[in-house]
């Protein structure tokens, strides 16, 4: 039910730039052609330190937004809280943005696969959340 020609975009928010970039790259590779789904990393602070930058998150979300919504995945405390504060503020993120409640690595891969298959924002969110059900023991 996507409204634009493009699909749902993904933003990977981590406390660490390295983690965010690696997870985004992994998910893009596992979905085959990276053209199918837009994924941006927003990790660390703007000066390259550990932490979260609201400005990087906002920029990444606009970069992947194609009108069908933006699913945001986050890891630790400040990453989650920054995204929630931006969503509560309701002004800076693209209109249809959502924080997805999922483990970062598994959730991002599931979200990317769903988005590349044409799922809408709700479908992407559900696919990512299902990652919590895959127990390792």
């Amino acid at each position: 039910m996507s409204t634009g020609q493009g699909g749902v975009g993904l933003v990977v928010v981590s406390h660490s730039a390295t983690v965010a970039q690696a997870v985004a790259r992994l998910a893009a590779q596992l979905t085959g052609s990276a053209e199918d789904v837009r994924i941006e990393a927003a990790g660390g602070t703007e000066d390259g330190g550990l932490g979260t930058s609201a400005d990087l998150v906002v920029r990444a979300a606009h970069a992947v937004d194609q009108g069908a919504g933006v699913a945001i995945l986050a890891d630790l405390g400040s990453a989650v809280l920054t995204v929630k504060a931006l969503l509560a503020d309701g002004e800076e993120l693209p209109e249809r943005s959502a924080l997805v409640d999922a483990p970062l690595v598994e959730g991002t891969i599931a979200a990317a696969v769903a988005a590349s298959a044409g799922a809408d924002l709700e479908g992407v969110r559900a696919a990512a959340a299902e990652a919590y059900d895959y127990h390792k023991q």
Partner: protein
Amino acid sequence: MGDEGRDKGGTGGPGTLDAAFFRRWLDAAAALIDEEAERLTALDSAIGDADHGANMRRGFSAVRESLAAEEPASPQAVLALAGRRLVSTVGGASGPLYGTLLRRTGKALGEALGERTDPDRTEFAAALRAGIDAVSALGGAKPGDKTMIDALVPAAEALSTSWEAAAEAAREGAAATVPMRAHKGRASYLGERSEGHEDPGAASAALLLGALADTAGRAGA
């Protein structure tokens, strides 16, 4: 209360909680955080990741620069700008938490005041309460979880008495976090080892309230 200049938010009379008052408060808070940054970091090194002082110093110094450059004209605009700067510059969890506190307090103040720009202490206390509720909702913390909420909630209640009572309540609230076990943030992973240390977020909240009482005392508010 003088009326001169109030509409510009510049030089309200003694006791006026105008934009200039809120700018002076945040300026005083930035100075105090700068002085106490090492203490905040020492507290955070016991139960956190030892960056609270540096993060708060970076955030409040950015707030100070923005307020000086833009000179927002109403209390609500001062708080909104300061909150946004904290979210974008602090880097740690205290950025969105303090950012939300200031922005929601400013928003509630704006809704309560309409066109007016001169809240009294009671109106400010109600707005601060709304800001604290938003912080609780964002972080999921309640009193007793060993967070900034433990300093902020008693301070907001004591504001009905006086500015100084609020600052004192925040200091006592921060001290009361020492024996608590953390239920939120990185410190919560430590379990019982989080006991016996003052919460850095409660300590920085007490600094904000201390700067508020000092600013109000000087203004004769």
